[in-house]
């Protein structure tokens, strides 16, 4: 568990260091995600020669535990709304309209593009 958590933090730390060190426009945690993918790919390849702490199911289980409560993690940031009530009061209507319009637009555009290109590439459905 602790080794797994350390591995996840190490990926994030390396991502953060890489992003800031080279000045990449990509955020640290996203680079951390890419590094974790590389690590998983390497682990798959050298499975037999690695210690159990790396090959066992604990790493995945730890990641899944964090992901299982993903929406909880947004609560502290969301409560920040109490700090900005002046901004939200002054622009309540235009802000609400902008967020609703843009969220619906993004949802529909993504969904329809995905569906259209699926059909063009001759996909046979989820089970295929």
């Amino acid at each position, binding site marked *: 568990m602790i080794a797994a*958590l350390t591995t*996840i*933090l190490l990926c*994030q730390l390396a*991502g953060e260091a890489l992003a800031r060190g080279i000045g990449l*426009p*990509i*955020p*640290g*945690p*996203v680079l*951390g*995600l890419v*590094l*974790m*993918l590389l690590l*998983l790919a390497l682990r798959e390849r050298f499975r037999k020669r690695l210690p159990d702490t790396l090959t066992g199911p604990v*790493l*995945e289980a*730890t*990641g899944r535990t*964090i*992901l299982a409560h*993903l*929406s*909880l*993690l*947004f*609560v*502290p*940031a*969301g*409560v*920040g*709304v*109490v700090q*900005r009530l002046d*901004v939200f009061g002054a622009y309540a209507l*235009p*802000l609400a*309209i*902008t*967020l609703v*319009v*843009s*969220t*619906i637009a*993004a*949802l*529909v*555009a*993504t*969904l329809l*593009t*995905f*569906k259209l*290109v*699926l059909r063009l590439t001759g*996909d046979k459905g*989820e089970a295929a």
Partner: protein
Amino acid sequence: MSAAPFELWVFLSRSPLLWLTVTLAAYVAADRVSQATGRHPLANPVLHSIWLIGLILWTTATPYATYFEGAQFVHFLLGPATVSLAFPLWEHRKTVLRTAVPMLAALLVGSVVALGSVLLTGALLGLPQDLLVAMAPKSVTAAVAMGIATTMGGDPALTAVMVALTGILGAIIVTPLFNLLRVTDWRARGFAVGLASHGIGTARAFQVNALAGTFAGIAMGLNALLTAILAPLALGLLAR
């Protein structure tokens, strides 16, 4: 009131322990309600935790900074959670690679529409530039969006609120909207909500269907990457 309980309150109200406990307790309560309603979209646990905690802070006149001393432990996990998206992505790599072309197309169109529509609608309705900058990365997961806002000279705290609101909004709208559009493909539905509403949308997708949740997680990761590149470009265009 005698002095003792008052002193106790003064001590507790400033300790991280109290506000961390309040955050978790509010979420557990809101999540139970969501479960009891059969995961009704309007019973979104994030939405109801936020107003509940906000109300507690307001009644006790607690500053947000004091609250965040405790809540930061939860907030911190946003970064490790982003890294952990690698696990479902790796596990479903075959399905993902098979749908790589539709995903990349949807990613490109969705990311541009999410970014373009918020900047255009906001500018048309006369929102000031600093608000537009804070809203630009609203579809991206909080840890990343705050980073993007900071690089563009925006206010990361305001961005975090926009991100949470967009997430809640998407998680509430997605099920009725996609039922109305009669799209039943879980991959497409999940990918769309993950792109538009990051982690809160992904959490919603996992509630409805595991495959949808996986695709939502992928969309969330990919869009974080693409928006980090596109947002400064789009704001540059708008400023002209």
